[in-house]
């Protein structure tokens, strides 16, 4: 566990802009995420939700604006400077991104070997413990290709947690999963926040997940945070766009890119 835990830090997006070519994905996004909370970012597909969290750990670079974590300016850090940050902010990708050539245990052991200097045997033992915490201990020796999406996601979460991060980013954790697996993942995320105090930012368009686990919800629309508040506040919002999204109507005020 983290020795001498650092004081909890707020994450801030300040007027962040990001375009790909002539397609503007984020147009002045501003958002504050409080330490220890579960913040869900929702919005229609292709609206930049995943982009926002990738900006946080420097997998993409913002065109304009500031991204802060406590006093640290994340948006202007170079790649080597980001390395310690990435050990404190973990990310679980949409496709789990486990390494195909390694077993689950070897996958989870990798950060342990590289960052904590553990030898293979130690690391594998620790990995099995971690996998047990997400209920995947019996599959420790299997390859990712042999498992279902839900199982891979859980293993990926175990891997991300090996470095005991303060913040965990989840990119569409339940999208494409069957309801049982999805609810399992929801419980894992909630447990992280309740038991360990991890700050979670969850990008999703799965309404069940969002309304189950979110402390606050940020609704991203046209590149900006259109509305931000607790689940209750959003449910009772009179904004037509929010209402359309929550009730899942296919026509209405909301402009959806593409269709």
């Amino acid at each position: 566990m983290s020795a001498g835990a650092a004081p909890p830090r707020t994450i801030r997006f300040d007027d962040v802009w990001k375009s790909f070519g002539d397609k503007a994905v984020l147009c002045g996004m501003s958002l504050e995420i409080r330490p220890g909370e579960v913040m869900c970012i929702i919005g229609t597909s292709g609206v930049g939700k995943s982009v926002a969290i990738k900006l946080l750990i420097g997998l993409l670079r913002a065109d304009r604006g500031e991204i802060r974590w406590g006093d640290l300016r994340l948006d202007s850090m170079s790649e080597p400077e980001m390395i310690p940050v990435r050990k404190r902010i973990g990310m679980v990708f949409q496709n789990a991104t486990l390494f195909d050539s390694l077993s689950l245990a070897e996958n989870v052991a990798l950060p342990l070997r590289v960052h904590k200097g553990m030898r293979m045997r130690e690391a594998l033992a620790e990995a099995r413990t971690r996998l047990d915490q997400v209920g995947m201990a019996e599959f420790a020796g299997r390859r990712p290709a042999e498992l279902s999406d839900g199982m891979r996601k859980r293993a990926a979460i175990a891997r991300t947690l090996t470095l005991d991060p303060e913040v965990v980013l989840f990119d569409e954790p339940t999208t494409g999963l069957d309801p049982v697996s999805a609810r399992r993942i929801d419980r894992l995320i909630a447990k992280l926040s309740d038991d360990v105090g991890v700050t979670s930012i969850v990008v999703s368009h799965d309404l069940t997940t969002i309304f189950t686990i979110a402390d606050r919800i940020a609704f991203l629309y046209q590149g900006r945070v259109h509305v931000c508040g607790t689940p209750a506040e959003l449910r009772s919002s009179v904004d037509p766009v929010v209402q359309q999204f929550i009730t899942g109507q296919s026509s209405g005020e909301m402009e959806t890119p593409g269709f």
Partner: protein
Amino acid sequence: MTGARRAALRSPIETLGATAMQVAREAGGITLLAGRVLRCLVPPSMDGRELTRNMYRMGNRSVPIVALTAFFVGGIMVIQAGMYVRQFNATGLVGWGAGYAIFREIGPVLIALMFSGRVGSNNTAELGTMTVTEGTMTVTEQLDGLRALAIDPIRYLIVPRVVAMMVMLFILTVVGDLVSIAGGMLFSRLLIGIDPSTFYYSLVDNLDWIDFVHGLVKSAVFGLSIALTSCYFGVSVRGGAVGVGRAVNAAVVAAAVSIMLLDFFLTFLLP
């Protein structure tokens, strides 16, 4: 496809210029990659397990193809020599002629080309599939996954592959050279009726260790070139399945050109 037609209407000078700029850009990118790889080699620090895993895989995949090619090439060399043997009755020269050509030129170059086609393109496709971030059924983002874990993809993924490819090509060239000679011995017995011992002594009496080493030095350089080009094109993939196909194509072509170019320079530079 009309894009290709439109491109044809550009003047040849423009096309040449565009090609030159693209080649320069790629060469620059490959050099940068080489620099980063080198920094991880001095002092040597890479993931040992990845290194052995890659070496095993690459060797496993390419031994059959290299052995087959080398065997056929031995036969071709002997057939070409055969026409002169009949003319000049120069049976004593076949072993030497075939050995000289194989050790110094044909062996390293052809085995490198085959290696590039088998292992190089496979490597590019693998790295490309890991890099792809949009557009197809399997989006894996494994490269980003590594970065998100604060692990340097170069040190963990690329350097072991580069080292593995260099070492494997070296070993394969040695093996391939020997298989070629064996093939040459067999075919010269079957097609021209030359005794294997004549072949053998002709080779051993006239060739020197330096001829063998000349070829091996070439293969080490080729290995480095193939490794760097295949990794570079693999991680620069843009655009899904189509992008991966194009990257493999570009990688194999670039490797072939660089092999020919390096062969040219090394032939003159080495003794």
